């Protein structure tokens, strides 16, 4: 293999590594965006939590949930909590979708990192 071909292959390897790190960093941003503070407790706006709260709200039942530190928190206003969870979830997913779209069309290392 001549030097040119090897250099191109190594540049591609660098591109792949940068792409993978960028994907992980997007996940980290999404995790941060999913964080919700409510009633002095921190929650991750996960699909599971959203569904559980929605179910309790529909059935007009008491909402008792575990926060990120496994403390049980009594939610006084289930509808308001659900809205906050959904807002956080939607904005996190929107962010992820936009970033993924951008990555799909990034064909160079510089494009991946937004240069």
């Amino acid at each position: 293999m001549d030097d040119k071909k090897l250099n191109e292959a190594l540049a591609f390897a660098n591109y792949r590594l940068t792409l993978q790190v960028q994907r992980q960093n997007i996940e980290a941003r999404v995790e941060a965006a999913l964080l919700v503070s409510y009633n002095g407790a921190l929650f991750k706006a996960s699909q599971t939590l959203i569904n559980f709260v929605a179910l309790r709200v529909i059935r007009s039942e008491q909402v008792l949930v575990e926060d990120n530190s496994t403390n049980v928190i009594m939610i006084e206003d289930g509808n308001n909590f659900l809205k906050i969870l959904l807002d956080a979830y939607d904005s996190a997913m929107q962010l992820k979708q936009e970033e993924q779209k951008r990555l799909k069309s990034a064909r160079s290392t510089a494009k991946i990192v937004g240069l």
Partner: protein
Amino acid sequence: MSTCGFMMFAYNNEQLDYTQLALVAAYAVKKHMPNYPVVLVTNQQSLEHCKTMHGQDLIDAAFDDIILTNPEYERNMRLHHDGAYHSFNAQFTNTNKHDIYNLSPFDETILIDTDYLCGNDNLSKLFGGQHDVAMFRDARNLRCEEPFTTERWLHYAGIRMWWSTVVYWRKSKEAEHFFNIWTAVKKNWEYYRFLYKFPGTLYRTDYSASIAAHMCDGWQDGGFIGQIPNFMRYQDQRDDIVQVLGPNHWVMLSNLPEEWKNIVVEIKGEDVHLMNKKSILRNYEKIMENLA
């Protein structure tokens, strides 16, 4: 209604202008959490230098209050790196970090290092929380990798490390106990160094805070300290800033000893602990332009 705010320490040395770093960190707090006051703890010489170099207007915009202290000089030389190819030694004045409990004017305080730049409002979610004290337990570098074992454990058969880069506490008996033990650990550093078997002679507040957390929790890991959610993102001292694209948008160079593995990384919308302090100072104008 409890009062909440941010605080930071800045004592200049001959190599690093910590007050300049504090200006950047304070501007980042105010950019993303404009409703919270920022208080600087410094000494007279550093403050005078800051006034001369950066002007009173910038200081007034950054800090809501300034507390002057004069910690006793204790030799604590630290090896710093500025990217992959330059290193230097400088005095590191961190020996009075535990005093912050008594210095803070707030009911709830978040103490941040001057090289910790906020990129969102997540830290403010700690106010009014369930824990009396909270810190980061986990960290990830620019590549989203965990740090070396020595940055995660005090000893391979010892206790887990808590990062003292960001410390939240609520004024309470429990938090007071934590800071009192931290003080005792600092005073008897040699003893605790051997007891907890960690390497080196540099006084590290990460270690003393971790020991205080362990002791306060009844010599166990039982949840006394709240974990700040997710992880602390850090730029290693060997890394560098390539370009500042926005108030919380960076392109950085992640360096490894094997040069061919160096990559550029985009960091956006996150808090970042920029350990290469000179990289902040080199890009000072551009960063401040984006944070203003």
